[in-house]
């Protein structure tokens, strides 16, 4: 393995690295927003929307991101909708992540003790007040482990963006390998680059989980 080759490739990897971070961030924020909206629709059982939501979740969770991206990138233009590769990637990631986040939040809401609900009803809280003051604060805390797992999952899924030629990390590595055939060096950098993002993040999220689990409200 040649350090010289690695060194020369770093500027390109840096661009891929930043793009991976950028796309992940937008995708995660978007997924959380979609997830919250969907979990609220499910919690309040909003008619019609609730049915649409079920269809969305089934499609989103039971099709690979790879196929979703092909569809957005190749099939949509045929229907007259043209988007840049990056936009396709972000939409695909949010489409996938939204349903996972939604399941995570719903799991949290459902995990709140039923007695909390009764006790809230007993002091006259309306459905909305019960959700606002009791279920959501407790449910969000319970859904943090799922949220953490989904965040890591979505960052890793950005590697699939390479199939629609978005120059993120994986795409950069594959490109360089195609050009110069130095597979060992480029794959090494690729692994290290993902590890730099994911390992610290994973540690932070674990600490956050632990804090919420053992510790508690209010300190």
């Amino acid at each position, binding site marked *: 393995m040649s350090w010289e080759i690695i060194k020369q490739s770093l500027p390109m990897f840096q661009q891929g690295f930043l793009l991976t971070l950028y796309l992940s961030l937008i995708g995660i924020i978007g997924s959380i927003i979609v997830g919250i909206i969907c979990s609220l629709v499910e919690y309040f059982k909003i008619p019609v929307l609730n049915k649409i939501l079920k269809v969305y979740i089934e499609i989103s969770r039971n099709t690979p991101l790879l196929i979703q991206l092909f569809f957005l990138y190749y099939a949509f233009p045929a229907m007259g909708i043209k988007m840049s590769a990056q936009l396709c990637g972000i939409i695909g990631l949010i489409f996938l992540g939204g349903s996972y986040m939604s399941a995570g939040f719903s799991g949290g809401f459902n995990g709140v003790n039923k007695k909390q609900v*009764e006790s*809230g*009803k*007993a002091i006259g809280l309306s459905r909305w007040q019960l959700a606002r003051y009791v279920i959501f604060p407790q449910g969000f*805390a319970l859904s943090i482990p799922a949220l953490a797992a989904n965040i890591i999952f979505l960052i890793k899924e950005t590697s699939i963006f390479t199939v629609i030629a978005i120059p993120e990390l994986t795409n950069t590595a594959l490109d360089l390998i195609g050009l110069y055939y130095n597979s060992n060096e480029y794959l090494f950098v690729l692994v290290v680059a993902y590890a730099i993002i994911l390992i610290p993040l994973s540690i932070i999220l674990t600490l956050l989980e632990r804090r919420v689990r053992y510790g*508690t409200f*209010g300190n």
Partner: protein
Amino acid sequence: MANEVLKVEHLDKYYQKKHVLHDINFTISKGEVITLLGPSGSGKSTLIRCLNGLEDFRNGEITFEGKKVIPNEKNWQQLRQKIGMVFQSYDLFPNLTVLENILLGPTKVQKRNVDEVKQEVDKLLQKVDLLDYKDAYPRQLSGGQKQRIAIIRALALHPEFMLFDEVTASLDPEMVRGVLNIIQDLADEDNMTMIIVTHEMNFAQQIADRVLFLKDGNILEDTSGKEFFKNPKTDQAQEFLQSMNF
């Protein structure tokens, strides 16, 4: 009957096919304290949960302060401000402080002035020796303290009528007295109308104006407290009192 607070007529409750409450009839007048006694599984908790809409029932009618209750969630939500309930497992909201727990109903549901309610709550907390804990979170409190807070949370809504569902059943023995004293004070000082489900026989005897004895979902006796403990009429009630060493 004058000053009738609550009237229950021909109430039947089923869990799927299981008939758990059979044709329940009784009324409670203002200031009256009823204890609901009976062996485990006799339907005591189910009955009082029907009285504030936490359980639905198949047949029957409930009249509250002279008005028939049309049993839907919206009506119950209104009525629950007038019918306070405290549960066995206290169930304070762990994400809120003691004070926030208590303020939630009066300020969000009843939209009363926050400062006014706070002053009132301070007095209530003082009375049960928990004023120092008002900014604590529920997990920092003992079971007995939590239960006293739960009672205050219910009282802060100025209910006309209180339901107590085995409120001392999950407390350590040394905590029980403090909680029962609050309930006793409510009867003595505030003349509060109450239905109390309890297994504390001494307490029941002391506080009950009337006893309803329930077995297998039937009211077998509806009699004065004194009469019930001195002279239980049915074999089942005698058996029950014996089993409680009474």
